[in-house]
């Protein structure tokens, strides 16, 4: 048992920190810290900065142009990036589609699509969920029918994150309706400029536009855009879901969030004393910090196991559940700390509203973030689904 980072890992952390200091603009970091909507240009710019340093694809093998960091290095990067308020790297092309292409794609697909992900030529979004297929993803109905050199796709996807910026979407589609649900699904790459593709915005409860519906009406997709074998899409999807669950614990986000709550609670007064000294508030804060410290170590345990080549299994589900509970609890503390000033609404939709809305102690839109982050325990396999997985592993399929 040795809980310290190796000298190499410490040197790596210093390198990451120096990079962030030099390359992350204070304006962009401030937008991230205050949870403002980032523009496509903001995100593209940050991707380009990382790509120039060779750090855009930490999880890719070097042979594909990645950094090939191990899990501990990735963890260190995440931690430093969150602390510095760097934008989150948009994961759809980089850490969701790319691993699938690298493992199951044809050489031609790898050579065409992977460089375009790195240099920003393509913005990918994910076409998984449907109105009738959420937690029960395998019941998806969007169908693709082979017609010569093409598939004809009809159906609807939903909760498509940042689909408004995307020019490409990877989709799970039903290619065989007559077999067991999981066995009739294929994995298709679809150009969103194809006639018949329509993106409709979904406005969330905090007024933000981050998800969309994507409709397909007789969309022609060339057969070379099928990944792997027809009807094997579910296998690839499961492989992808495992990659979606890297950095699932969100330790870095929670640490940054907790630091922000403390800053506000030190500035805010209650009965003439700083709120952070109030026994009830202090107890709540301590409780979540205690949980976070333990989870950070759980995360490192799993991370170093993965670094040594072990694949995270049920532990990833555990981290998802605990990690989201902790992040949401920190969001709750943040809104409490702001008191009555949690009520004003700085809406990106209202021009100039951000300047009108009072924000004592620079707390940011704490209540809007509290509501927006209810999504954490819903998306990427809801916490109920994760608990089901844990129970199944622990008790052998018994519910």
């Amino acid at each position, binding site marked *: 048992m040795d809980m310290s980072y190796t000298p190499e890992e410490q040197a790596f952390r210093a390198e990451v920190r120096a990079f962030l200091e030099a390359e992350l603009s204070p304006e962009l970091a401030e937008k991230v810290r205050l949870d403002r909507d980032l523009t496509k240009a903001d995100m593209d710019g940050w991707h380009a900065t990382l790509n120039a340093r060779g750090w855009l694809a930490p999880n890719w093998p070097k042979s594909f142009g990645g950094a090939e960091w191990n899990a501990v290095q990735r963890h260190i990067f995440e931690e430093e990036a969150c602390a510095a308020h760097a934008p989150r790297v948009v994961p759809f092309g980089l850490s969701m589609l790319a691993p699938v292409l690298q493992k199951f794609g044809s050489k031609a697909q790898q050579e065409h699509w992977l460089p375009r992900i790195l240099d920003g030529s393509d913005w990918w979004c994910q076409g998984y969920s449907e109105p009738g297929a959420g937690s029960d993803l395998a019941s998806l109905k969007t169908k693709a029918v082979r017609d010569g050199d093409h598939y004809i796709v009809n159906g609807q996807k939903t909760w498509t994150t940042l689909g408004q910026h995307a020019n490409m979407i990877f989709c799970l589609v039903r290619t065989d309706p007559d077999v067991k649900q999981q066995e009739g699904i294929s994995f298709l790459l679809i150009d969103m400029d194809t006639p018949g593709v329509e993106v409709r915005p979904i406005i969330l409860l905090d007024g933000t536009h981050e998800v969309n519906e994507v409709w397909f009406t007789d969309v022609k997709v060339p057969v070379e855009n099928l990944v792997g074998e027809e009807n094997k899409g579910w296998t690839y999807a499961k492989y992808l879901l495992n990659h979606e669950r890297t950095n699932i614990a969100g330790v870095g986000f929670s640490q940054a969030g907790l630091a922000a709550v403390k800053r506000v609670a030190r500035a805010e007064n209650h009965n003439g004393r700083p709120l952070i000294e109030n026994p009830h508030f202090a107890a709540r804060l301590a409780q979540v910090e205690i949980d976070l410290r333990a989870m950070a170590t759980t995360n490192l345990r799993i991370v170093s196991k993965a670094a040594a080549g072990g694949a995270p299994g049920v532990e990833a589900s555990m981290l998802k559940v605990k990690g989201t509970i902790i992040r949401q609890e920190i969001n709750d503390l943040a809104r409490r700390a702001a008191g009555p000033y949690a009520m*004003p609404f700085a809406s990106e939709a209202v021009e100039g509203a951000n300047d009108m809305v009072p924000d004592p102690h620079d707390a940011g839109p704490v209540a809007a973030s509290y509501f927006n982050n209810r999504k954490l325990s819903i998306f990427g396999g809801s916490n109920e689904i994760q608990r089901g997985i844990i129970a199944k592993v622990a008790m052998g399929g018994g519910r």
Partner: protein
Amino acid sequence: MNFELTEERQMLQDTLRRFLREKYDTARRNEIIGSEAGMSPEIWAALAELGVIGALFTEDQGGFGGAGFDIAVVFEELGRAGVVEPLLDSALLGGRALAGAGRDALVEQVIAGAVHLAFAHGEPGGRYDLDHVQTVADGNRLTGRKAVVMNAEAADHLLVSARSGDEIGLYLVDRSAAGLSVQGYPLLAGGRAAEVTLENTPAQALGLGLDDIKDLNALAIVAQSAEALGAMETATALTQDYLMTRKQFGRPIGTFQALAHRMSDLLIEVEQARSAVINAAGYLETDDRDLFLSATKNLIGRAGRLVAEESIQMHGGIAMTQEYELAHIAKRIVMADHRFGDTDYHLERYIALCVA
């Protein structure tokens, strides 16, 4: 013991519920929230005509209710429909303050829906402490700043608390008074508020002090708690309905025990919340008032958070969308914890009152 509503209150409840069901659906309300004024003059006039404002005043004050249970009945229905019109601030806090000061003519206009008011008491840095007043009254001139004042932009008059020496008093300020500035903004859960600054602003003393402000705050806690209760009832009804109709894995998701039991917990908490509101309304005019108000606001805060979060979670993504009713309702429930003292504030106060 009799926990039934009186015939009059039952009628009021039925009328108001029917009106809001017909005239205040999700689409209409989202339109109102998105409008410049953040409220609807037509809805306001209709509520006044239905007697909803009058029900918040006693007969002596020109109304036909005014007791804790009248307030609770009205605000439970407003909460059920997620109403964003400022009845709590304009009619209840503002109107009852004027009634307490004997301004009968103005009160009459309030009840008729012809006058809007704002209650400007909280200040930056004061959080929920009622005696935190740094606005200064120099004779009949006020100078200071008030925080998150609901309905300040639309108000014809503002009721402003200010300190003169050791005494805190309530003053009436005309919306067009010199030195008054109002910087408005939208609120996350709908409606509008403003930062209000007064610079040597002329005002009339109303002859009301901190004790009167505490009495008004007590009415507001009953109203705010009842509103949260109504919203919680809508949240649980929507969730119940969704669990019975939404199918995944070939069956309604409510048939999964993991969800069914959590639904049951919400129903239990809503019953707790209902009793807490009854306690607050029922003990409003007794010596135990403050103890029960704090108990109620604390319980509502805890139960409200659970109901809002669990309702969203059990729905899944759909509940996160602006066009689905629950999204707004959940915001109303949680934001109710940011007025008149939050869960922690009232826990502390409850402890202090028990020890005293």
